[in-house]
């Protein structure tokens, strides 16, 4: 469980072992950090289904998981300033194929560029093979939103 304080391989750059309430509600789990990329897992669950005839999970679940992973992984970028707040500007997702029912979904997210104001992130959602993705996304985040700015 992601709220466990003894997760093996936890990357200390990630600020908290506690997922946001919606991340917990979806059942998202932290997997690992590898080569600057964050990996999260969404275990298959009945309440995530979008089409009861097929058991395929809803696109919105993939959106939520990719948003979550994309936001988090900015902290792994070497230009990330500790204590910096952030806001999502946009997120574009391309759906390549439906996720196979009853199989977990993995998300790999990488913040490939961070400027003083903006972070650029790409992410891939897949099941067994990273090269055969369920969906891919690009997102941009505004860093250091007003709540963190020093008063003028």
């Amino acid at each position, binding site marked *: 469980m992601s709220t466990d304080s003894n997760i093996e391989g936890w990357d200390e750059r990630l600020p908290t072992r506690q997922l*946001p*309430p*919606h*991340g*917990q*509600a*979806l059942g998202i789990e932290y997997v690992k950090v590898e080569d600057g990329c964050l990996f999260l897992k969404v275990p298959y669950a*009945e*309440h*995530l*289904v*979008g*089409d*009861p*005839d097929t058991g395929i*999970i*809803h*696109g*919105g*679940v993939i*959106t*939520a*998981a*990719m*948003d*979550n992973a994309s*936001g988090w992984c900015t902290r792994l970028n070497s230009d990330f300033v500790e204590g910096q707040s952030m*806001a*999502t*500007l*946009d*997120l*574009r*997702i*391309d*759906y390549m194929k*439906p996720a196979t029912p009853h199989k977990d979904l993995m998300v790999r997210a990488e913040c490939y560029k961070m400027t003083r104001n903006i972070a650029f992130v790409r992410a891939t959602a897949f099941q067994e093979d990273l090269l055969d993705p369920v969906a891919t996304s690009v997102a941009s985040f505004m860093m250091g939103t007003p*709540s963190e700015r020093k008063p003028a």
Partner: protein
Amino acid sequence: MKILDELRREGRADDMQSLVDHIPYARFLGIRVDRKGTEITTILPFDAKLIGNTTLPALHGGVIGAFLELTAVIQLLYSTQCERLPKTVDVSVDYLRSGHPVDTYGRATVTRQGRRVANVQAEIWQEEKSKPIAASHGHFLLTPV
């Protein structure tokens, strides 16, 4: 989708609430549909599990994306009367304001409907419709009846 056939047989093809109640993920989010004539408004009642940022607090960006996508799909199902759920090809979301911990409303417009693909724009707001918290446009694959 079986439920779509059932509703159509019963002459309730426009009963979007029954349809939404058959989508487990929409039920999990607690989505409700309000239809007045041909105008459809989706409602996302606030719930603690929708929070993404506990300090602000603000709705999870993923919830916002999912709600926009569902709003678009519901509008599309109503407008096109297709027999299966449209497949999302891509969705692009602009986050405009942070989502407060209150109810959220959504509207979508089918901008262009072709034989195979539809382009749908959606917008969601909270207190004021003129101040949307997010907007999206996306493409959906249709299965014609």
